[in-house]
């Protein structure tokens, strides 16, 4: 029963992230996600200090709001500082993350929002707050939140995501053709921060990064068009979370870590297969 509940949580959250990942990979914003996911920590701690609880709806709302603000701030810094992108990311996220760590040390050290939990995630603890439904005893509150999140992202993929791809292939044409491209990007960052915050509590900073990039990247190796990329990345994320969970559960080790490590191994395998087939042709 615990295994089913865990699997459902992991598959739901990785589906959410896999729907965002083709956009991220094509826009080449992988380290941007890394920067947001680290620098959102002061926002999370601040909203925790405001709300005083980790489970309420208001906490999620404030956390999403702050992470959206962080993304906008990072974009603003990109445009105004004229330093190379890597250096800005290295400057921005280390500064904000260390502010967050000090805030945790000074204001919120006694509760279960310690800095280690932010890094590792707590998949194993989500199974306990069940909803007590007779027919589906394994369902818990995290599942409901994640399915709501999945619905929102599906709507976004259906209605808004297409125009962003023009930007990643031909920036000038995209700015010429769509006047509201700026707002589409803002919507994307809003959706991105929504997904990140929703999956943070379950997966932790580092696994979120891994699951947000790996499906799209693996799919990009083998797909020929955009629809293929979506389908492959969805299949990949379900497979990797299933394999990771079973390996981790049978060996009794950390699930989040195992999935992130598996993603690295799978990428190496996929790259090996792809380069071999390229040489044959």
């Amino acid at each position: 029963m615990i295994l089913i509940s865990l699997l459902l949580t992991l598959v739901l959250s990785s589906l959410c992230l896999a729907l965002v990942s083709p956009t991220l990979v094509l826009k080449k914003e992988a380290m941007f996600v890394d920067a947001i996911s680290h620098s959102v920590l002061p926002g999370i701690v601040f909203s925790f200090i405001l709300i005083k609880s980790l489970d309420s709806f208001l906490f999620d709302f404030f956390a999403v709001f702050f992470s959206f603000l962080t993304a906008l701030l990072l974009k603003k810094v990109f445009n105004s500082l004229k330093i190379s992108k890597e250096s800005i990311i290295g400057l921005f996220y280390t500064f904000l993350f260390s502010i967050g760590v000090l805030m945790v040390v000074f204001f919120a050290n006694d509760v279960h929002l310690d800095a280690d939990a932010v890094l590792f995630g707590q998949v194993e603890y989500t199974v306990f707050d069940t909803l007590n439904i007779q027919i589906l005893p394994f369902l818990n509150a995290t599942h409901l939140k994640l399915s709501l999140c999945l619905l929102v992202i599906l709507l976004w993929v259906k209605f808004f995501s297409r125009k962003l791809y023009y930007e990643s292939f031909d920036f000038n044409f995209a700015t010429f053709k769509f006047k509201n491209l700026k707002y589409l990007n803002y919507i994307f960052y809003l959706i991105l921060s929504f997904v990140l915050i929703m999956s943070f509590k379950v997966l932790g900073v580092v696994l979120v990064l891994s699951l947000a990039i790996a499906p799209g990247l693996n799919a990009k190796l083998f797909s020929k068009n955009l629809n293929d990329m979506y389908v492959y990345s969805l299949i990949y994320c379900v497979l990797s979370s299933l394999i990771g969970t079973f390996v981790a559960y049978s060996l009794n080790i950390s699930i989040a870590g195992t999935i992130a490590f598996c993603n690295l191994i799978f990428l190496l395998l996929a790259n090996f297969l792809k380069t071999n087939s390229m040489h044959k042709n």
Partner: protein
Amino acid sequence: MLIYFSVLLFALVAALYGNFCVFQKQGLIADVLGHSVFPAVILSILLTNSKSYFYMMVFSFLFSLLAFAILNYLKRNPLLDKDSIMAIILSGFFGLGTLLISILKRNSSNLISGVSDIFYGNVSAISSYDLFFILWFSLISLLVYYFLRRYLIFSSFDSTFFKFKFKIHKLVDFIFYFILTFLVTLSINLVGIILTSALFIIPCLISYKFSKNYFQLEMISSLAACFSCFLGVFISSNFNSVPTGPLIVIILGLFFISAHFISIKPSKL
């Protein structure tokens, strides 16, 4: 006294090598190397069943080299962009560390107590033996820097000319990344594995706002790094519960913000 001396020397060397990181647009390489140190430290504790600093260093060095090799192997595929590869590698290695730490928690829970120091750094946890280690290797890296400086300046400002002029360009690159890996490994007790890249990037960004030639850039960046490391170590050794790494990074960041508003030079990097 020894602690200040070795930390300051280390900060100076890190800033000097970090300048070249920024100019070669490799700013986040320290981040990847730093994350890959985490599983190595846990593995050394698991295998040797003790917290020996020497084995930690050896394992971390090997793991960073492995991460660097994987990065260079995957970069050859034109379908994969550098950012995504780096994201996957750093999260994969960090995941391996998380996996190993759960094994460590199950088997020998008495060894786990000091492990969280490696995330954010803790100066009071460094013993005098480790300090000598840091001191000697910083000195060696400084000596290597003296011989390497000329080639590195060529390679970061005009890499085609550098490859054309000097036949030893591969050797220079190899030594540079070798020493960079070692410096990242040494920094885990000071700033922690997550914030390592700040120590390499931010001093260069600060000094770029003021300097007119490369010598000035080196001087100002090493001064900024030394001063902020001194302040960070001073504050965190007087207040026990505050981790060192975040303090140093916040001081560096405040320096950068004030430098950004003070300087009038239009910056382009």
